[in-house]
């Protein structure tokens, strides 16, 4: 039976991952902003078969509180077999361009907060010498594009941070998994004009994540075809790339 901590548990992808682990009788500890919603998610996961589900409200902006919240979670689960870091926002790129405050807020939630979280969790996991730390980054971090480079640069920071962390924790028997979802049909992307052919369902992404956790993959793109899409995009010479409106 696995002990699983999920940060940002009210997100659509994290919710689907939680359902899969619940069906196997896992013990779950959920952190999220909306406690009312967390309560309903917990009831749902118990019915689906989770051995236990605990929830704690958390505000990503309040970095001071992380240490205490994570220690409480660790004490309650006794061990982190899997930690999924899934919190984040997808802000409005256009508004960020004219607002320092909005830009920094995006960076704060999607990069600074995640990195702070990972720093604390990494040290807890080094002590237990086992477990998997899975982080939801994004294909958007692979290359800066005019349409969402604020979000993209935050995710790029997370991706690079995880790369280094993977090497460091490997020596302690702790595995780090970087997850790069493409476009997913979630409340985060609601109302955006995205090509329906490329939209994945959260269920599909969750299946890939659980599979990657099992296989101890290092970096996954989900759905799989994003690996090839991004490898194409990454190799476009900058002098052409800057003229493209991607």
């Amino acid at each position, binding site marked *: 039976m696995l002990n699983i901590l999920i940060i940002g548990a009210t997100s659509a992808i994290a919710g689907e991952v939680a359902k899969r682990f619940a*069906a196997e009788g896992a013990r779950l500890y959920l952190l999220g902003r909306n406690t*009312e*919603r967390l309560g*309903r*998610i917990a*009831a*749902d996961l118990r*019915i*689906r*078969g989770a051995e236990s589900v605990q929830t704690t409200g958390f505000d990503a902006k309040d970095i001071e509180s992380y240490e205490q919240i994570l220690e409480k979670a660790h004490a309650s689960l006794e061990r982190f077999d899997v930690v999924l870091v899934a919190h984040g926002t997808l802000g409005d790129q256009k508004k960020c361009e004219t607002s320092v405050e909005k830009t920094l807020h995006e960076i704060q939630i999607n990069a600074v907060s995640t990195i702070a979280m990972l720093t604390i969790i990494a040290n807890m996991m080094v002590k237990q010498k086992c477990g998997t730390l899975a982080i939801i980054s994004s294909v958007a971090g692979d290359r800066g594009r005019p349409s969402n480079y604020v979000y993209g640069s935050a995710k790029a920071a997370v991706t690079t941070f995880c790369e280094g962390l993977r090497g460091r924790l490997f020596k302690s028997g702790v595995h780090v998994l970087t997850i790069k979802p493409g476009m997913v049909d979630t*409340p985060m992307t*609601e109302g955006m004009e995205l090509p329906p*052919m490329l939209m994945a369902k959260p269920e599909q992404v969750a299946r890939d994540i659980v599979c990657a956790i099992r296989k101890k993959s290092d970096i996954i793109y989900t759905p799989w075809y994003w690996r090839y899409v991004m490898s194409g995009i990454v190799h476009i010479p900058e002098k052409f790339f800057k003229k493209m409106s991607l």
Partner: protein
Amino acid sequence: MILHGWGRYPTVDGKVYHPASPDEVRHLLHSHSDGVTPRGLGRSYGDSSLGGHMLDCRRLDHLLAFDARKGLLYCEAGVSLNDILEVFVPKGWFLPVTPGTRFVTVGGAIASDVHGKNHHVNGCFSEHIEFIELCLDEERILRCSRDEHPDLFRATCGGMGLSGMILSAAIQLKQIKSSFIDQTTYKANNLEESLELFEIHEDKPYSVAWIDCIAQGRSLGRSLLMTGDHAENGGLVPGKGERFTLPVDMPSMLLNKHSIKLFNTLYYHRVSGTSVSHRVHYEPFFYPLDSISDWNRMYGKNGFTQYQFVIPKAAGKKALSDILKTIAASGKGSFLAVLKAFGKRNENLLSFPMEGYTLALDFKIEKNLFPLLDSLDAMVLDHGGRLYLTKDARMCQETFRLGYPEWTKFQNVRERYGVRRGFQSLQSKRLGLD
């Protein structure tokens, strides 16, 4: 955003909201008091889930409580039947009633008061609902059941989402020992034999017939009748899920008189003797088409409509054969038509089933289709029948009123609870339910 129902006809350019909690539903009702349309997985065929402002219930998708002794499940409206099967089949529970697709929400199943292959024994979906929680406006969330606000309950079950936004419900699941079905397929050479087979097998819990609607003359109404019951053993194995996706709209030319005739003939001759028995998993038995996602694209980019009517038992063979003859003569029939004998009707004001026979067939949208359907409408009404609102995209107000004489009571209930203005759809406007 351009949206359509399962038939991909008609389409609407509307706004969709995804409330994630009862509170968010209340706020949305407050800011859109001039009318919203509840929507689930969009599997109703026509325009019943379409409107200018749609409330999508799919984020209300939590299981809230389960009484493992009684098998009573309390869950939110956006939970899909597929979800229920995935969680509860391994625990030995099954849906009390299921339509031909598992990709519908609980809210949608109640609003359409769906029926399945066991209607003649177990009735509609709503007959297994203990209570419903309904949001009427920004202030009122009401619980209704056979004892509490029974008038609202009778209007909500089968009420196409026009009596409030369903938030959650309690469903009585059915105990099973196996996820397999013992199925027998019988061959009927004509309509008379088809109807006789339904009589002979009326004690079987599940029955449905695939009917060849192209065959004429002595073979008119030939069919394969499938009956089934839950097996006693074989394990509680979950399904394999979807397998194949139709990625593009098929050119609608591919569906013509000849291809449909060929398909129907091959399908009919799948069974060579008079009957054949198998043990099959519940997925292919109940949901043969769910294995092809987006199968609705088969009918091309103009979409299709499913014509489903019921006629009272007394009208029986004569009415069905008149209607089948008209369809066969038109050459417009569909791949597979489904025939089913219904049991007794329930007390809901707009529920479709009544004791008799129901026939459902797909027609791709093309020139001259609607005049044909109008003439079928007249025949159905003539025999005291009616059309299924969940499939409908085009019937006229008069056809609706004649088929559903309790529509006035339905309007009275909506008036009484003050939801007449707050909940509407393209369909409700077309049918004069405003």
